[in-house]
């Protein structure tokens, strides 16, 4: 089941990566960073899948990855809303501090659950507020905006994983099998997120091709 999960997730990620790569150059700061983020995610998930298959512990990789991912995501939001810089920096500081705290609390061999949970909540709040702001200020229909789909996917992912992350530590201790089953939620949400990323990049590509002379 874990192999199927990894294959499905990597497929969705590969699709997102291809779509991000296909955004015509010059991509602009936003889509260049999104491509970099997707490439990092792809590399991490591939490494995670291989190490898990080989039985090597990869907890530290994911702890580092969540910190890097969060930093890059806040950077993406900042590109869209430069006026939010202070709030985003505060959120970033809180997120990174809780990851550090989680790592210190659980050691190198345990996930930084507190950090991941906090980042999930912070991302949900920031992305929801961004979507509300987009709906308020956009002059064209929301569903036609590529960034709308990107952040809808991110919002669904980060909000959706919060209940699982909140209970993961206890579940992991109580019943490993149950924990693995419940982890399917994260995989499913991640797939939705990467399909949304792919859709966003595809829409951006269409938009650029339509407007280029």
């Amino acid at each position, binding site marked *: 089941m874990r192999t199927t999960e990894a294959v499905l997730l990597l497929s969705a990620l590969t699709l997102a990566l291809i779509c991000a790569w296909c955004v015509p150059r010059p991509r602009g700061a936003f889509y260049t960073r999104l491509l970099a983020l997707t490439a990092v995610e792809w590399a991490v998930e591939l490494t995670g899948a291989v190490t898990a298959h080989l039985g090597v512990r990869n907890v530290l990789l994911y702890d580092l990855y969540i910190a890097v991912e969060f930093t890059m995501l806040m950077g993406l939001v900042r590109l869209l809303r430069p006026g939010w810089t202070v709030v985003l920096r505060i959120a970033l500081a809180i997120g990174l501090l809780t990851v550090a705290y989680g790592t210190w609390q659980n050691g190198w061999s345990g996930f930084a659950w507190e950090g991941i949970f906090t980042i999930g909540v912070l991302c949900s709040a920031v992305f929801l507020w961004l*979507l509300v702001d987009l*709906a308020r200020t956009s002059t064209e229909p929301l569903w036609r905006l590529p960034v709308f789909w990107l952040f809808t996917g991110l919002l669904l992912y980060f909000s959706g994983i919060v209940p699982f992350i*909140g209970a993961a530590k206890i*579940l992991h201790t109580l019943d490993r099998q149950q924990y693995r089953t419940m982890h399917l939620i994260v995989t499913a949400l991640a797939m939705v997120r990467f399909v949304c990323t792919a859709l966003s990049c595809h829409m951006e590509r269409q938009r650029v091709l339509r407007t280029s002379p």
Partner: protein
Amino acid sequence: MMDAERISLTVAASTLLIVLILGVVVALLIMNNTRLIRHRAELAELKQQHDRAVMEAEREAVRHTLREIGRELHDNAGQLLAVAQLGINTAIGDGGAGNTTLTAARDALEEGVEEVRRLGHDLNTDMWQQRSLADAISAEAERVERVSRVRVHLHVVGTPPALEPDTSTVLFRVFQVILANALKHSGADRIDITLESEPRFSLTIADNGRGFDPATVTAHAGLLNIHKRCALIGWAAHCSTAQGNGCAWHLQPAD
């Protein structure tokens, strides 16, 4: 074991609930945004209507003023000149027939009366009820030929359609501006005016003067005014010219 199952169930239910709520929120955002965009479009339309109404009111005010000035010129200045003309004619009849100064004054006065009448007529926008644009252009062409050394040729191809008084007024003013520019700046000795009805109504004014480099005078207020006035009535003005090659203005309804 039971605890783990309960926790899992709670997690699954919470996730489902969150995803559902977010789905509803996103749908609401899309609906709200659509409504907002529609509202903005309605506001823009209202503003456009308001601007059109203001412009129409301004045009009506200008029309009214011009009509009043025209009437004043015809009724007051015209009458005064007619009285002066009568006096001079009487003086000439009372033994001043040989007085060349009096005769010259009478001739100048006659021209003055004619000019005031023409001006009064031109300023009156109601004249378009009785006179077509082709007639007005023809009269203006004759007048220009009379007062200058420029030969003006009018070609009317087909039967020009009847235009709205506003359109006729603006087109006639634009025509006068182009003609005045040609007389003042081009050094032309021939101006060709063509009114065509087919395939669509258009007016062309071409001179054989020195022309100009369009790149150097594109921002000239006079030229911009021609374009602006035409745009007011939904027409487009196109100028073809080059240094030493004369100048041709082509006016036609915009696409």
